[in-house]
């Protein structure tokens, strides 16, 4: 079970630079948890960040800055309040980074035959919505396109589409230019984490029925 589909270098670099919005950050983090190859590249890009940091022309600190910092060195670090996590009994959703598990999760919503969506509430509002998508065996997911970027990371099960087969850890990026026709594997449910920007455009009657739900 090896990972075949990775985020591109530019996305990994934006992750390393800390310039992704929080929804996309979650999607890339989920892939990184599964993928040593991309983790290594992110580490490398963090070294690039280190180099850029040392090369940036320094901006002088205020005259009392060091004294102010030194005065605080004895302080105990702030303790972090424990935040709510995935409810008991639902921690079995595999492959989710721990920090995502601490976010608030909505209920599983039925959106189409054998397709359920479960929103993840990000700590801050952004352009990207994040949700879990659970689809039954053999489900032919609706033909759709996007007005923005959609990132998908497989957590469990798998699906196939034009670009090949996607299993746990695999990452898919869709944008305006790509039409997807994913078909879920016949041997079990597929659970994905999806980070979606903009509006989804679904084709057909079922699509129009599904639209209000997917808008979350």
């Amino acid at each position, binding site marked *: 079970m090896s990972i075949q589909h990775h985020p591109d270098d530019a996305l990994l670099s934006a992750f390393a630079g800390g310039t992704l919005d929080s929804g996309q950050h979650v999607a890339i983090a989920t892939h990184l948890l599964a993928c*040593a190859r991309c983790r290594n590249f992110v580490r490398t890009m963090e070294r690039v960040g280190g180099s850029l*940091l040392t090369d940036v022309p320094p901006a002088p*600190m205020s005259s009392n800055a060091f004294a102010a910092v030194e005065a605080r060195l004895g302080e105990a670090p702030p303790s972090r309040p424990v935040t709510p996590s995935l409810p008991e009994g639902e921690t079995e959703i595999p492959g989710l980074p721990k920090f995502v598990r601490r976010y608030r999760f909505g209920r599983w919503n039925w959106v189409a035959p054998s397709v359920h969506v479960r929103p993840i509430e990000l*700590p801050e509002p952004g352009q990207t919505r994040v949700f879990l998508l659970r689809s039954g065996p053999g489900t032919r997911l609706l033909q759709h396109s996007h007005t923005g970027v959609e990132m998908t990371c497989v957590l469990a099960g798998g699906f196939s589409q034009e670009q090949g087969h996607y299993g746990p850890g695999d990452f898919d990026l869709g944008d305006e230019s790509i039409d997807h026709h994913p078909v879920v594997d016949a041997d079990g449910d597929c659970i994905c984490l999806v980070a979606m920007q903009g509006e989804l455009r679904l084709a057909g009657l079922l699509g129009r029925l599904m639209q209000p739900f997917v808008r979350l």
Partner: protein
Amino acid sequence: MIQPGRRIVILVMQQALLCLDLPRRTSFASPMPKAPRAPQRLARMQPGKREPAEAPHWEVLIRAIAADQDRDAFARLFAYFAPRVKAFMQRSGVPADAAEELAQETMINVWRKAALFDAGTAGAAAWIFTIARNLRIDAYRRTQRGIDATAAEFEFELETDDAMQPDAAMIAKQDQTRVRAALDQLSAEQLRVVELSFFEQQAHADIAAALGIPLGTVKSRLRLAMNRLRDLLDGQS
């Protein structure tokens, strides 16, 4: 901390700065033997202008803080890194006051987390960069909703996974040198897009608007720059 409407203005200003600032490209002087470079690049070199980024003593200083709570070591790290972190924050669009605060906060975290520093997974500069970056992400989120910060937590999840790799310290050291050499070989334009993806909070679309070039061009430039960087890094091992 940045209103969407102001982003473009800030970006344009940053672009102007980047343009005015082109000679600082020379500061990518590598402490190691250099690969052949373009003549015009050579002409802009100003050797000895600044300290090498990853001089071994930064790591030594961090270890001294971890081992002995060495305040002199901390003072030296502060003097070098705090103004650079502040500049990094300002480049990311953080106003000067907040940038100063985040730089101070970064250095306090350097002090507190010194014991967690593992020269095996990151060089000193890269480590301080990630601390600063996480604080910036969290500060940005906090201003949006007043929430608790989490960016550093994921870092920790990954660290615990990878920290045990054999020879990691050696690899890290080589990596930092390779990274610097690879950056040295990027064209000025390629370096600029790489910098953009580090210093800007903005989406590619905003960068495109700021640079006045189509979105597709930004994407392809970024892809080319990254491919080149990956090639350079892979080729050196």
